[in-house]
Protein backbone atom coordinates (compact mmCIF):
# COMPACT_ATOMS: atom_id res chain seq x y z
CA UNK A 1 0.00 0.00 0.00
CA UNK A 2 1.47 3.39 -1.01
CA UNK A 3 0.19 6.19 1.21
CA UNK A 4 -0.64 9.30 -0.76
CA UNK A 5 0.61 12.11 1.49
CA UNK A 6 4.27 11.08 1.55
CA UNK A 7 7.77 12.34 0.89
CA UNK A 8 8.15 15.99 0.03
CA UNK A 9 4.37 16.67 0.17
CA UNK A 10 4.13 15.32 3.73
CA UNK A 11 7.25 17.28 4.71
CA UNK A 12 5.68 20.52 3.42
CA UNK A 13 2.31 19.77 5.07
CA UNK A 14 3.99 19.14 8.43
CA UNK A 15 5.86 22.45 8.31
CA UNK A 16 3.02 24.56 6.87
CA UNK A 17 0.51 23.14 9.37
CA UNK A 18 2.93 23.82 12.24
CA UNK A 19 3.19 27.47 11.13
CA UNK A 20 -0.63 27.74 10.88
CA UNK A 21 -1.04 26.33 14.39
CA UNK A 22 1.63 28.63 15.79
CA UNK A 23 -0.06 31.69 14.24
CA UNK A 24 -3.43 30.70 15.72
CA UNK A 25 -1.95 30.04 19.17
CA UNK A 26 -0.29 33.49 19.17
CA UNK A 27 -3.56 35.06 17.99
CA UNK A 28 -5.61 33.23 20.65
CA UNK A 29 -3.18 34.03 23.48
CA UNK A 30 -3.11 37.70 22.43
CA UNK A 31 -6.92 37.76 22.28
CA UNK A 32 -7.21 36.23 25.77
CA UNK A 33 -4.58 38.55 27.22
CA UNK A 34 -5.92 41.78 25.69
CA UNK A 35 -9.65 41.10 26.08
CA UNK A 36 -10.26 38.67 28.97
CA UNK A 37 -13.64 36.89 28.71
CA UNK A 38 -15.15 35.88 32.03
CA UNK A 39 -18.47 34.26 31.14
CA UNK A 40 -19.64 31.42 28.90
CA UNK A 41 -21.68 33.83 26.80
CA UNK A 42 -18.65 36.04 26.16
CA UNK A 43 -16.62 32.97 25.13
CA UNK A 44 -19.39 31.73 22.88
CA UNK A 45 -19.84 35.08 21.24
CA UNK A 46 -16.07 35.33 20.61
CA UNK A 47 -15.69 31.83 19.18
CA UNK A 48 -18.86 32.17 17.12
CA UNK A 49 -17.88 35.38 15.33
CA UNK A 50 -17.26 34.48 11.65
CA UNK A 51 -13.57 35.49 11.55
CA UNK A 52 -12.65 33.58 14.74
CA UNK A 53 -14.73 30.53 13.72
CA UNK A 54 -12.86 30.46 10.41
CA UNK A 55 -9.53 30.72 12.26
CA UNK A 56 -10.54 27.88 14.61
CA UNK A 57 -11.53 25.80 11.60
CA UNK A 58 -8.14 26.46 9.94
CA UNK A 59 -6.37 25.61 13.22
CA UNK A 60 -8.13 22.25 13.51
CA UNK A 61 -7.57 21.49 9.81
CA UNK A 62 -3.84 22.12 10.33
CA UNK A 63 -3.84 20.12 13.59
CA UNK A 64 -5.56 17.11 12.02
CA UNK A 65 -3.26 17.13 8.96
CA UNK A 66 -0.25 17.42 11.27
CA UNK A 67 -1.54 14.52 13.37
CA UNK A 68 -2.18 12.39 10.30
CA UNK A 69 1.36 12.84 8.95
CA UNK A 70 2.93 12.22 12.37
CA UNK A 71 0.80 9.23 13.39
CA UNK A 72 1.10 7.67 9.94
CA UNK A 73 4.88 7.93 10.18
CA UNK A 74 4.84 6.15 13.54
CA UNK A 75 2.63 3.37 12.15
CA UNK A 76 4.83 2.98 9.03
CA UNK A 77 7.80 2.43 11.36
CA UNK A 78 6.23 0.12 13.93
CA UNK A 79 3.29 -1.69 12.30
CA UNK A 80 5.02 -3.95 9.77
CA UNK A 81 2.31 -6.51 8.81
CA UNK A 82 0.31 -4.94 5.96
CA UNK A 83 -3.07 -6.00 7.39
CA UNK A 84 -2.37 -4.60 10.87
CA UNK A 85 -1.00 -1.41 9.34
CA UNK A 86 -4.11 -0.92 7.20
CA UNK A 87 -6.34 -1.53 10.21
CA UNK A 88 -4.47 0.96 12.40
CA UNK A 89 -4.23 3.58 9.62
CA UNK A 90 -7.96 3.16 9.02
CA UNK A 91 -8.63 3.59 12.75
CA UNK A 92 -6.52 6.77 12.91
CA UNK A 93 -8.14 8.18 9.74
CA UNK A 94 -11.61 7.41 11.15
CA UNK A 95 -10.82 9.03 14.50
CA UNK A 96 -9.39 12.17 12.85
CA UNK A 97 -12.37 12.39 10.50
CA UNK A 98 -14.69 12.07 13.50
CA UNK A 99 -12.89 14.93 15.26
CA UNK A 100 -13.15 17.06 12.09
CA UNK A 101 -16.91 16.48 11.84
CA UNK A 102 -17.31 17.24 15.55
CA UNK A 103 -15.42 20.56 15.20
CA UNK A 104 -17.56 21.58 12.23
CA UNK A 105 -20.77 20.71 14.11
CA UNK A 106 -19.70 22.73 17.17
CA UNK A 107 -18.77 25.75 15.06
CA UNK A 108 -22.02 25.48 13.08
CA UNK A 109 -24.02 25.36 16.34
CA UNK A 110 -22.26 28.53 17.52
CA UNK A 111 -23.57 30.34 14.45
CA UNK A 112 -27.22 29.74 15.44
Amino acid at each position, binding site marked *: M*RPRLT*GLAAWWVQRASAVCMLLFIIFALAAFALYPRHSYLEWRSWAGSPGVALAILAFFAALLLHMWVGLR*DVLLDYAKPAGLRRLLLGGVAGALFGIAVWVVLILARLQT
Partner: protein
Amino acid sequence: MKLSISRYNPEHDEQPYLQHYEIDLVASDHMLLDVLLRLKQQDNTLSFRRSCREGVCGSDAMNINGRNGLACITRTSALREPVVIRPLPGFPIIRDLFVDMTQFFKQYESITPYLVNDDSPPEKERLQTPAERDKLNGAYECILCACCSSQCPSYWWNPDKFVGPAGLIQAYRFIFDSRDRATAQRLDDLGGDPYRLFRCRTIMNCAEVCPKGLEPVRAIEAIRLKIAQVPVHPGGLDMHPPKSPT
Protein backbone atom coordinates in the same frame (compact mmCIF):
# COMPACT_ATOMS: atom_id res chain seq x y z
CA MET B 1 39.82 -2.01 34.60
CA LYS B 2 36.58 -4.01 34.61
CA LEU B 3 34.93 -4.70 31.28
CA SER B 4 31.77 -6.53 30.23
CA ILE B 5 32.02 -7.50 26.58
CA SER B 6 29.29 -8.97 24.42
CA ARG B 7 30.30 -12.42 23.18
CA TYR B 8 28.62 -14.51 20.54
CA ASN B 9 29.88 -17.50 18.62
CA PRO B 10 27.22 -18.66 16.14
CA GLU B 11 28.57 -22.22 16.32
CA HIS B 12 27.96 -22.54 20.07
CA ASP B 13 25.72 -19.74 21.35
CA GLU B 14 22.01 -19.28 20.82
CA GLN B 15 22.25 -15.59 21.70
CA PRO B 16 24.88 -13.03 22.74
CA TYR B 17 25.89 -12.81 26.39
CA LEU B 18 28.16 -10.51 28.42
CA GLN B 19 31.54 -11.88 29.47
CA HIS B 20 33.28 -10.12 32.35
CA TYR B 21 36.99 -9.30 32.21
CA GLU B 22 39.34 -7.59 34.62
CA ILE B 23 42.70 -6.30 33.47
CA ASP B 24 45.35 -4.11 35.10
CA LEU B 25 46.00 -0.99 33.08
CA VAL B 26 49.55 -0.18 32.04
CA ALA B 27 51.02 3.20 31.10
CA SER B 28 50.44 2.63 27.38
CA ASP B 29 46.69 1.95 27.78
CA HIS B 30 45.62 5.42 26.68
CA MET B 31 42.68 4.35 24.54
CA LEU B 32 40.08 1.61 24.87
CA LEU B 33 41.48 -0.17 21.80
CA ASP B 34 44.84 -0.53 23.60
CA VAL B 35 43.04 -2.41 26.39
CA LEU B 36 41.07 -4.57 23.94
CA LEU B 37 44.25 -5.53 22.08
CA ARG B 38 45.90 -6.61 25.35
CA LEU B 39 42.74 -8.52 26.30
CA LYS B 40 42.92 -10.32 22.97
CA GLN B 41 46.44 -11.47 23.86
CA GLN B 42 44.94 -13.12 26.95
CA ASP B 43 41.82 -14.46 25.22
CA ASN B 44 42.43 -14.92 21.52
CA THR B 45 38.80 -15.94 20.85
CA LEU B 46 37.68 -12.33 21.44
CA SER B 47 36.86 -10.88 18.01
CA PHE B 48 36.62 -7.28 16.90
CA ARG B 49 37.59 -5.19 13.89
CA ARG B 50 40.37 -2.63 14.04
CA SER B 51 42.90 -1.23 11.63
CA CYS B 52 44.40 2.26 11.70
CA ARG B 53 44.07 2.74 15.51
CA GLU B 54 43.87 6.51 15.10
CA GLY B 55 40.24 7.33 14.22
CA VAL B 56 40.64 7.39 10.47
CA CYS B 57 39.49 4.01 9.16
CA GLY B 58 36.32 3.62 11.27
CA SER B 59 36.79 -0.15 11.68
CA ASP B 60 36.54 -0.33 15.47
CA ALA B 61 33.13 1.32 15.82
CA MET B 62 31.27 -0.30 18.71
CA ASN B 63 28.76 0.50 21.41
CA ILE B 64 30.66 1.61 24.51
CA ASN B 65 28.67 2.16 27.71
CA GLY B 66 25.52 2.59 25.61
CA ARG B 67 26.95 5.04 23.12
CA ASN B 68 28.48 4.33 19.72
CA GLY B 69 32.08 5.39 19.28
CA LEU B 70 35.50 4.38 18.03
CA ALA B 71 37.51 2.34 20.55
CA CYS B 72 40.78 3.80 19.25
CA ILE B 73 39.91 7.40 20.19
CA THR B 74 37.97 6.66 23.40
CA ARG B 75 40.14 7.51 26.39
CA THR B 76 40.26 4.83 29.11
CA SER B 77 40.51 7.52 31.80
CA ALA B 78 37.07 8.90 30.85
CA LEU B 79 35.19 5.58 31.03
CA ARG B 80 32.84 4.45 33.78
CA GLU B 81 33.44 0.91 35.01
CA PRO B 82 32.52 -1.74 34.27
CA VAL B 83 32.90 -0.70 30.64
CA VAL B 84 30.05 -2.41 28.79
CA ILE B 85 31.00 -3.05 25.16
CA ARG B 86 28.47 -4.34 22.66
CA PRO B 87 28.42 -4.57 18.85
CA LEU B 88 26.84 -1.73 16.87
CA PRO B 89 23.09 -1.84 17.64
CA GLY B 90 20.64 -2.64 14.88
CA PHE B 91 23.16 -4.57 12.76
CA PRO B 92 23.18 -8.40 12.50
CA ILE B 93 25.95 -9.87 14.68
CA ILE B 94 28.44 -12.18 12.95
CA ARG B 95 30.60 -12.91 15.98
CA ASP B 96 31.38 -11.05 19.23
CA LEU B 97 31.80 -7.39 18.18
CA PHE B 98 31.78 -8.13 14.44
CA VAL B 99 28.60 -6.95 12.72
CA ASP B 100 27.35 -7.62 9.21
CA MET B 101 27.59 -4.29 7.35
CA THR B 102 26.25 -5.57 4.02
CA GLN B 103 22.98 -3.62 4.25
CA PHE B 104 24.83 -0.50 5.35
CA PHE B 105 27.13 -0.60 2.32
CA LYS B 106 24.21 -1.46 0.00
CA GLN B 107 22.59 1.80 1.09
CA TYR B 108 25.88 3.61 0.56
CA GLU B 109 26.21 2.13 -2.92
CA SER B 110 22.62 3.14 -3.72
CA ILE B 111 23.44 6.86 -3.59
CA THR B 112 26.02 6.51 -6.43
CA PRO B 113 29.00 7.52 -4.27
CA TYR B 114 31.21 8.91 -7.00
CA LEU B 115 31.31 11.96 -9.26
CA VAL B 116 29.17 11.62 -12.39
CA ASN B 117 30.48 13.89 -15.10
CA ASP B 118 30.44 13.01 -18.78
CA ASP B 119 31.85 16.37 -19.92
CA SER B 120 35.11 16.01 -21.80
CA PRO B 121 37.91 15.88 -19.22
CA PRO B 122 40.09 18.99 -18.87
CA GLU B 123 43.80 18.84 -19.52
CA LYS B 124 44.70 18.58 -15.84
CA GLU B 125 41.81 18.39 -13.35
CA ARG B 126 38.27 19.64 -12.75
CA LEU B 127 38.75 22.84 -10.76
CA GLN B 128 36.53 24.37 -8.08
CA THR B 129 36.42 27.86 -6.60
CA PRO B 130 37.12 28.07 -2.85
CA ALA B 131 33.41 28.83 -2.30
CA GLU B 132 32.37 25.71 -4.23
CA ARG B 133 34.86 23.65 -2.27
CA ASP B 134 33.55 25.05 1.04
CA LYS B 135 30.17 23.45 0.36
CA LEU B 136 31.72 20.03 0.91
CA ASN B 137 32.97 20.91 4.40
CA GLY B 138 31.30 18.86 7.12
CA ALA B 139 30.53 16.02 4.68
CA TYR B 140 33.72 14.82 3.02
CA GLU B 141 35.22 14.04 6.44
CA CYS B 142 32.84 11.08 6.94
CA ILE B 143 34.80 7.83 7.43
CA LEU B 144 31.77 5.49 7.07
CA CYS B 145 32.25 3.99 10.54
CA ALA B 146 28.44 3.50 10.80
CA CYS B 147 28.23 4.96 14.32
CA CYS B 148 25.45 7.29 13.11
CA SER B 149 23.29 4.85 11.14
CA SER B 150 23.62 2.26 13.90
CA GLN B 151 22.34 4.75 16.51
CA CYS B 152 19.44 5.99 14.33
CA PRO B 153 15.98 4.63 15.27
CA SER B 154 14.64 5.37 11.78
CA TYR B 155 17.42 3.21 10.34
CA TRP B 156 16.69 0.44 12.87
CA TRP B 157 13.08 0.22 11.68
CA ASN B 158 13.76 0.43 7.93
CA PRO B 159 17.40 -0.49 7.16
CA ASP B 160 16.39 -1.85 3.75
CA LYS B 161 14.42 1.25 2.70
CA PHE B 162 15.86 4.29 4.52
CA VAL B 163 19.34 5.22 3.26
CA GLY B 164 20.39 6.27 6.76
CA PRO B 165 22.47 9.22 7.96
CA ALA B 166 25.84 7.88 6.72
CA GLY B 167 24.56 7.30 3.18
CA LEU B 168 22.74 10.63 3.12
CA ILE B 169 25.69 12.73 4.24
CA GLN B 170 27.60 11.07 1.37
CA ALA B 171 24.68 11.86 -0.97
CA TYR B 172 24.93 15.51 0.15
CA ARG B 173 28.64 15.48 -0.62
CA PHE B 174 27.95 14.62 -4.29
CA ILE B 175 24.71 16.63 -4.72
CA PHE B 176 26.49 19.82 -3.64
CA ASP B 177 29.71 19.13 -5.55
CA SER B 178 30.05 21.67 -8.37
CA ARG B 179 31.85 19.07 -10.55
CA ASP B 180 28.97 16.57 -10.45
CA ARG B 181 26.46 16.61 -13.34
CA ALA B 182 23.86 14.17 -11.95
CA THR B 183 22.24 16.46 -9.36
CA ALA B 184 18.72 16.15 -10.81
CA GLN B 185 18.88 12.34 -10.95
CA ARG B 186 20.25 12.20 -7.40
CA LEU B 187 17.44 14.44 -6.10
CA ASP B 188 14.80 12.45 -8.00
CA ASP B 189 16.16 9.22 -6.59
CA LEU B 190 15.94 10.45 -2.98
CA GLY B 191 12.88 12.70 -3.21
CA GLY B 192 10.72 10.37 -5.29
CA ASP B 193 10.54 7.70 -2.60
CA PRO B 194 8.73 8.01 0.73
CA TYR B 195 11.43 6.07 2.60
CA ARG B 196 14.92 6.76 1.23
CA LEU B 197 15.25 10.35 2.51
CA PHE B 198 12.04 11.27 4.26
CA ARG B 199 12.12 8.61 7.00
CA CYS B 200 14.51 10.86 8.92
CA ARG B 201 12.54 12.21 11.90
CA THR B 202 15.33 14.64 12.95
CA ILE B 203 16.05 12.62 16.09
CA MET B 204 19.68 13.82 15.79
CA ASN B 205 21.36 10.78 17.36
CA CYS B 206 23.58 10.82 14.25
CA ALA B 207 25.06 14.22 15.10
CA GLU B 208 25.29 13.29 18.79
CA VAL B 209 27.44 10.18 18.29
CA CYS B 210 29.51 11.02 15.20
CA PRO B 211 33.17 10.54 16.27
CA LYS B 212 34.25 13.15 13.72
CA GLY B 213 31.76 15.78 14.97
CA LEU B 214 29.75 15.76 11.73
CA GLU B 215 26.03 16.48 11.57
CA PRO B 216 24.34 14.20 9.01
CA VAL B 217 20.95 15.59 10.06
CA ARG B 218 21.98 18.96 8.56
CA ALA B 219 22.91 17.22 5.31
CA ILE B 220 19.48 15.55 5.22
CA GLU B 221 17.74 18.87 5.81
CA ALA B 222 19.87 20.53 3.10
CA ILE B 223 18.89 17.82 0.59
CA ARG B 224 15.21 18.26 1.48
CA LEU B 225 15.48 22.02 1.03
CA LYS B 226 17.27 21.52 -2.30
CA ILE B 227 14.43 19.24 -3.48
CA ALA B 228 11.92 21.86 -2.32
CA GLN B 229 13.97 24.50 -4.18
CA VAL B 230 14.54 26.52 -1.01
CA PRO B 231 17.96 28.27 -0.82
CA VAL B 232 20.50 26.38 1.30
CA HIS B 233 23.21 27.93 3.49
CA PRO B 234 26.16 28.09 1.07
CA GLY B 235 29.11 27.45 3.39
CA GLY B 236 28.95 23.71 4.01
CA LEU B 237 27.62 21.84 7.03
CA ASP B 238 27.95 22.69 10.71
CA MET B 239 30.38 20.64 12.79
CA HIS B 240 30.90 20.36 16.53
CA PRO B 241 33.62 19.03 18.85
CA PRO B 242 33.01 15.26 18.96
CA LYS B 243 31.95 13.62 22.22
CA SER B 244 33.35 10.26 23.23
CA PRO B 245 31.59 7.57 25.26
CA THR B 246 32.05 7.97 29.03
